[in-house]
């Protein structure tokens, strides 16, 4: 019972926080608001930990029913939460990292007059995200799914006076909505097939069936996932989403929301196990995204954009893992990525804060002297994401790549290329920001403790995060995998049969090449005093990449412009030139017909007499004919 209460509290606390903050947003000072928000999410974190401790993996999971939601006919959809290994993992990530980022935001937002609103929305996001991961059926998950979409919209457009930001926000929401179409289709399909949306029930029943419908269902789910997790073809919103305040980027667009897609697929892993076709699609989309995004990352000059594209490509890796059916690896990478990507974003935020809002790395450099803590933590984050040995990223990424090798060396090679690009652009970023000479003209200053503490905590996590799922190779026993296996049935199907030798070799190759990359990057960027920036003098291919493969332009030409044109012309032509005239036309036709007929009434007396006679004769003829 107490556990149920705790479970209910986890989403409830941030929600309450959001409501309070929203209603008192004019009364509260930035710090008080931040404190309250942080307290709420921290409270949720505590509850999660308690739940985690009180949770016995052996029992599988528990469902906490709060109340009947939609129940009509044979449709029974309760408002219920599911507590099992998977949701607990996500809860801990969301609340844990969430708390840190809330704390960080206190410092980051303290001189923004709309800080209370910010915190309200941040709390609301946490609530939605928690609903997403805790939902006991698809529809509850969907509540969170759309909720985070809304919050993301609000927070991306937080500084609403800038039209570009609003555009970015709308873009994010609409693209998510496109994904949601897939999600809803999947839900209605599954409901019709299984008569329920409860995960537990569906997964139990489904593991038996072998049904082509499953391919459709999983594809729809995947479409939903691509929307949320910024995969091809729906990834272009994420880089633009950097318009939001940096903590938002860290929390929503790196650590939590964007991993919702992965979570959803792991959640319904059983279905995906039934649809190998879908798995392949996921695999290749993931690979493509990983490489594409990484390549774009190479040439970005906005510190947050670089991180954004790296996020997209890391998500690509996770999808590859899903495509390979190694769900635990995916979740593992979700976790570690949450650590170091949050760290990197917050670090970037700290840099931006230090430079008073400057985001262009061409105007940075040599900062390592000015902002030590930020530098160190950022450095740790960088090596973690680059997967240097014993860092968290090292374990999680290598696990995925091992699975990839098992499938095909080609895939491994592709992923390796991606990894190397990642290393390259991350170190490029590191060197351009912290090494060389300072190229800007602001006065860098270290951020307050509220911001640096989270950095340090996350730095530690990024280092030791690997222990969560330490492979046998290093004497661990994949704790996380076994833990998750109790919740996500799919995980039982995955198995890695590479010999230890092979694994060692792979790691060796990877590590060696990574180091080479770092060296090259050092050589090219560490000592730069100035930077050849503009894309004009690049060769075509390079420029194409630098211009993000022109995806935005493509979409604008393919969808946005035609849609606007359609909207305008449907109104001005279809409606005003066709529909309305048709409606009026009927009436006008009748009237003009009347105008013709009334000509018979000439007013000429003898004509009237004649007309009468003619009419009479006509009728007479009719009569005699019909006789």
């Amino acid at each position, binding site marked *: 019972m107490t556990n149920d209460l705790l479970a209910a509290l986890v989403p409830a606390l941030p929600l309450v926080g959001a409501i309070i903050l*929203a209603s008192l947003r004019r009364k509260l000072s930035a710090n008080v608001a931040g404190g309250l928000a942080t307290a709420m999410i921290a409270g949720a974190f505590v509850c999660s930990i308690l739940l985690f401790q009180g949770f016995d993996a052996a029992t599988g999971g528990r469902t906490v029913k709060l*109340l*009947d*939601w*939609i*129940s*009509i*006919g*044979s*449709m029974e959809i309760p*408002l219920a939460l599911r507590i099992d290994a998977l949701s607990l993992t996500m809860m801990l990530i969301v609340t844990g990292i969430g708390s840190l980022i809330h704390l960080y935001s206190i410092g980051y937002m303290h001189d923004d007059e709309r800080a209370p609103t910010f915190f309200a929305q941040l709390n609301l996001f946490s609530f939605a995200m928690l609903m997403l991961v805790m939902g006991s059926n698809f*529809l509850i998950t*969907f*509540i969170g*799914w*759309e*909720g985070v979409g*809304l919050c993301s*919209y609000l927070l991306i*457009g937080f500084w*609403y*006076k*800038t*039209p570009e930001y*609003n555009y970015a*926000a*709308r873009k994010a*929401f*609409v693209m998510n*909505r*496109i994904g*949601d*179409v897939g999600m*809803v*289709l999947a839900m*209605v*399909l599954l*409901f*019709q097939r299984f008569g329920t949306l409860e995960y537990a029930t569906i997964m139990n029943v489904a593991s038996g069936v072998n049904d082509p419908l499953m391919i459709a269902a999983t594809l729809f789910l995947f479409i939903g996932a691509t929307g949320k997790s910024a995969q091809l073809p729906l990834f272009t919103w994420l880089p633009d989403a950097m318009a939001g305040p940096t903590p938002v980027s860290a929390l929503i667009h790196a650590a939590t929301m964007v991993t919702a897609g992965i979570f959803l697929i792991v959640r319904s892993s059983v279905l995906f196990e039934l649809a190998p076709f879908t798995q392949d699609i996921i695999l290749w989309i993931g690979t493509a995204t990983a490489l594409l995004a990484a390549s774009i990352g190479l040439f970005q000059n906005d510190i947050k954009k670089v991180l954004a594209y790296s996020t997209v490509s890391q998500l690509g890796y996770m999808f590859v893992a899903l495509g390979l059916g190694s769900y635990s690896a995916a979740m593992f990478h979700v976790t570690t990525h949450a650590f170091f990507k949050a760290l990197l974003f917050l670090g970037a935020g700290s840099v931006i804060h230090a430079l008073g809002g400057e985001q262009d790395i061409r105007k940075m450099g040599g900062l390592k002297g000015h902002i030590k803590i930020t530098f160190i933590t950022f450095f740790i984050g960088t090596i973690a994401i680059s997967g240097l040995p014993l860092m968290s990223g090292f374990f999680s990424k290598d696990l995925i790549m091992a699975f990839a090798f098992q499938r095909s060396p080609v895939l491994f090679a592709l992923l390796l290329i991606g990894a190397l690009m990642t290393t390259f652009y991350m170190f490029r970023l590191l060197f351009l920001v912290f090494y060389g000479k300072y190229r800007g003209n602001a006065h860098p200053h270290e951020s307050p403790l509220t911001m640096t503490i989270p950095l340090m905590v996350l730095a530690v996590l990024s280092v030791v995060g690997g222990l969560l799922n330490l492979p046998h190779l290093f004497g661990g026993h994949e704790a996380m995998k076994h833990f998750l296996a109790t919740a996500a049935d799919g995980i039982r199907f995955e198995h890695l049969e590479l010999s230890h030798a092979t694994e060692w070799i792979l790691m060796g190759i990877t590590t060696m090449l990574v180091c080479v990359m770092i060296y090259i990057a050092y050589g090219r960027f560490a000592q730069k005093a100035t930077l050849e920036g503009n894309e004009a003098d690049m060769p075509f291919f390079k420029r194409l990449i630098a211009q993000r493969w022109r995806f935005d332009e493509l979409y604008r030409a393919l969808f946005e412009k035609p*849609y*606007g044109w*359609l*909207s*305008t012309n*449907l*109104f001005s032509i*279809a*409606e005003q030139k066709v*529909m*309305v005239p*048709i*409606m*009026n036309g009927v*009436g006008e036709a009748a009237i003009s017909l009347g105008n013709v007929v009334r000509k018979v009434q000439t007013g000429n007396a003898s004509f009237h007499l004649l007309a009468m006679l003619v009419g009479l004769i006509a009728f007479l003829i009719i009569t005699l004919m019909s006789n």
Partner: protein
Amino acid sequence: MIAALLLLIPFISALVLVIARPAQARPIALVSSLASLAVVLYAWISYTGGTVIHYDLDWVNDWGLRFKVGYDGVGLLMLILTGVVFPFIVATGYGQQHDRPATFNALLLFTQAFLYGVFLAQNALLFYINYELTLIPVFFILLYWGGENRRAITVRFFIYTLLGGLALLFGIVYLLVQNGGNGDFTALASLSIPASTQVWLFWALFLAFAIKLPIFPFHSWQPETYYMAPLQGTMVLGAVLLKMGLYGVYKLVFPIVPAGVEYWQTTVIVLALIGAVYGGVIAFRQSDLKRLVAFSSLSHVGVLCAGLFALNAYGVSGSFYQAFAHAILVLGMFYIVGAMQERMGTSDMSVMGGLKGQAPRLAALFLLVLINAIALPLTQSFVGEWLMFAGLWQVDGWLAFFALTTIVIGAIYMLYAYQRVMLGPDRTNVTLADASTRDHLYLVPLIAVTLILGVYPGPILELLDAPVQQLLSSLSVH
């Protein structure tokens, strides 16, 4: 007793209003509408299921007209809707400056009385009479208080609607004749008409509702009428009048010409969805907020109608649930439009932008109304739309897909509208007031209803469950 009160309260108050002084008009109307709301809620509480018949009296019995009034779950829901909506519509008046407020409110209350009549009627002819009568007060509201070009538009609206109305009358008379002059719904439902007849009789009965809703391609009257009408007139049209269309289909078309419905089902759904997409796409580039909302309403109604014609438990009940949600939405949206007109003197968005800076509260309220419009989960609309999608999917996957495109389209135009009004740099040169106490008193309850019924739709779904099941079983018998 309930039925009598429902019919008499607004009617008598309206008569009182005719002689009332202008200053007293709105208070009287408000009190009356609140009183009838109380009655409706009492009816809800005391409702125990089944079809309640309050009166069954002769009127022109030998000609098929009986004063037979009562309600089943769906009817009750419609009564609740009417009861809930009208206090708000009347209250809207406090923001407006009217010539002859007494007459205006009297007309509003007459409309309400006739609407109750429609939803209470258990006799086809009684239904028809009230159905047409709702039109008369609305006609005068539009004609006397409407915007520019009202003379032409009002008459067009009136005639177009009556065209459908008389087709309906023809259908009803035909049924009466077949049925030996017994016009009770129950009697008509038990009538077995040859399928070939039903195929054309369907349109005789359905045309009126198709125009009233309206569904594509019978919609052309709607946008300009909504645009021209005075705010409260638009609310009446959008919030309750078009719901008569849904209810009529449920009461007069489904049970009586099932074969015809079966024959035309796909056609109607497709038309409705075309309208839904059509309206939504057009709304995107509308520069006038009021017209935009009009087109968005067209889009929503398309989905409503499609859901209804899915003809399964989820579709039908979802449609009626959504009908309620849509009524609340219409009130909220048009109130926002009114608030804008109050402040900016126009509803043209090209002169707006960045108002959030000056009116953050209003912006917040707008947003909260808006999330209902785009059917975010935990709002009322989501429940309805989810049910309708589930229902449509069971008819055909593609239909469900097309219906679903509206959630994207809706997001596109709604957020764009929000941005053009509220966000961006402040482009207005006027200083405008933030949301007043009146605005809060008006919108907060609406939003509350939206969220409460979004989180806990149980009570209303209970109302719908039994009658819908009954309807469907009766259809499967045919």
